[in-house]
């Protein structure tokens, strides 16, 4: 146990205020000479434990009555010094006062739970807290890493390097070569022969047909009857251009009544 950790001694000004409260010079354990500040404890149980320790007996053998007296006396003295006392300390004081009176009452008047049981529970709690305080102190006193023992100051470190395991399949390889060759081979563009009606044949066909009729004829009527598909579209285009050409030469008239309406064609009477 490091008692010094547990106690905070009074600041100078407070010490001068009253009589018997000597501070820093007092040895721990000299109860009357100790000035105790409530901030120094981790709650009323902690204060009780310190007071119990001052009985200098095993916690199993402490006198609860004496402890109650000490606690209440302590709180009273603190109050007389007009120290601020947290509520839980006062609650504990009241409960201890009740416990004391119950312990002093004749047995037959005792309620349930009996004050002895309450006292035992308090004692058990103090034992457990005391055990942990002692354990904490022993733990802190061990040879601690970074204070008493040291790890290697400049470890090289263990590295994990990632290495790439490259994968490529045989087929990918030869296909890539094929693609390089295909991409860079000289390209020759061949246009397949398609069925077309040339402008010349369209002009001769349209002018020949205009020669045999005086009436208006729709452009489509000039197309070869067997032509369909691509040939028909080619014939239509060529025949249209042929009609324009014949109109330009003054050999034909063209009429269209509406946009995209049928194109009509007739011979110019000469």
């Amino acid at each position, binding site marked *: 146990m490091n008692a010094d950790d547990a106690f905070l001694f009074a600041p100078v000004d407070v010490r001068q205020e009253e009589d018997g409260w000597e501070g820093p010079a007092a040895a721990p354990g000299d109860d009357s000479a100790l000035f105790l500040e409530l901030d120094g404890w981790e709650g*009323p149980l902690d204060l009780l434990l310190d007071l119990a320790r001052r009985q200098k007996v095993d916690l199993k053998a402490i006198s609860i009555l004496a402890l109650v007296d000490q606690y209440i006396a302590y709180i009273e003295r603190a109050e007389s010094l007009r120290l601020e006392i947290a509520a839980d300390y006062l609650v504990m004081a009241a409960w201890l006062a009740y416990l004391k009176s119950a312990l002093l009452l004749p047995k037959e008047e005792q309620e349930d739970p009996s004050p002895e049981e309450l006292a*035992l529970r308090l004692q058990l709690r103090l034992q457990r807290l005391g*055990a*942990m305080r002692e354990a904490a102190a022993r733990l802190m006193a*061990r040879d601690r890493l970074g*204070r008493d023992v040291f790890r290697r100051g400049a470890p090289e470190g*263990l590295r994990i390097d990632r290495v790439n395991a490259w994968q490529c399949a045989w087929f990918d390889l030869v296909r890539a070569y094929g693609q390089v060759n295909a991409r860079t081979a000289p390209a020759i563009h061949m246009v397949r022969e398609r069925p077309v009606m040339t402008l010349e044949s369209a002009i001769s066909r349209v002018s020949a047909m205009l020669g045999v009729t005086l009436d208006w004829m729709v452009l489509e009527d000039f197309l070869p009857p067997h032509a369909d598909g691509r040939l028909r579209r080619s014939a239509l285009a060529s025949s249209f251009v042929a009609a324009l050409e014949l109109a330009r030469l003054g050999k034909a008239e063209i009429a269209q009544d509406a946009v995209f309406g049928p194109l009509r064609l007739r011979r110019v009477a000469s």
Partner: protein
Amino acid sequence: MTDGAADDLVRAVEAALFAAEEPMTAEALSTHLGGADVRPALSQLADHYRGRGVELVERGRRWHFQTAPDLAHLLRREREQVRRLSRAATEVLAIIAYHEPVSRAEIESIRGVQTSGGTLDVLMEAGWVRVAGRREVPGRPVIYATTPEFLAHFGLQSRRELPGIDELRAAGLLDPVEDAFEAAVAEPEESPDPLASGSESA
């Protein structure tokens, strides 16, 4: 001199632990060294270094080299590298270590005072305490436990080496007050009999 001619695996384990920046489990070492069984090498090394200025120690199943504790006075550095814990934090750490896994309410019932969140944060930031799940009781409180770093820092091979833990357990001082109380009233003439109290601190 047998020690001088350390075999290749022993040398490899020695070098790896020297170079490692963190303590390593035998498994991690083994993985690093291509799956070899490193345990015989570890104990051979621990023997070799025993009594030297540097020791090979096992802390929470992790191994590391550290300077011998008795040389602390020669090595202690000017700048304190170890944070000073408040008394509250010290107590909370001890309670967690000796009771783990333990909830905050259980810590508070032992200390008789509320524990500020900051106290647990400090312990977790130091790497000594971790959240170890939740207790499957109403409210499912978070429970805390210590870490391998805790064991390494305080030089403990395992929690079984916590100072006085066997005595505390035998005395029932790691049992809840109620258990101890029932044990005590069952045999009213004696003070709490440690063996009679239903220990559930394991």
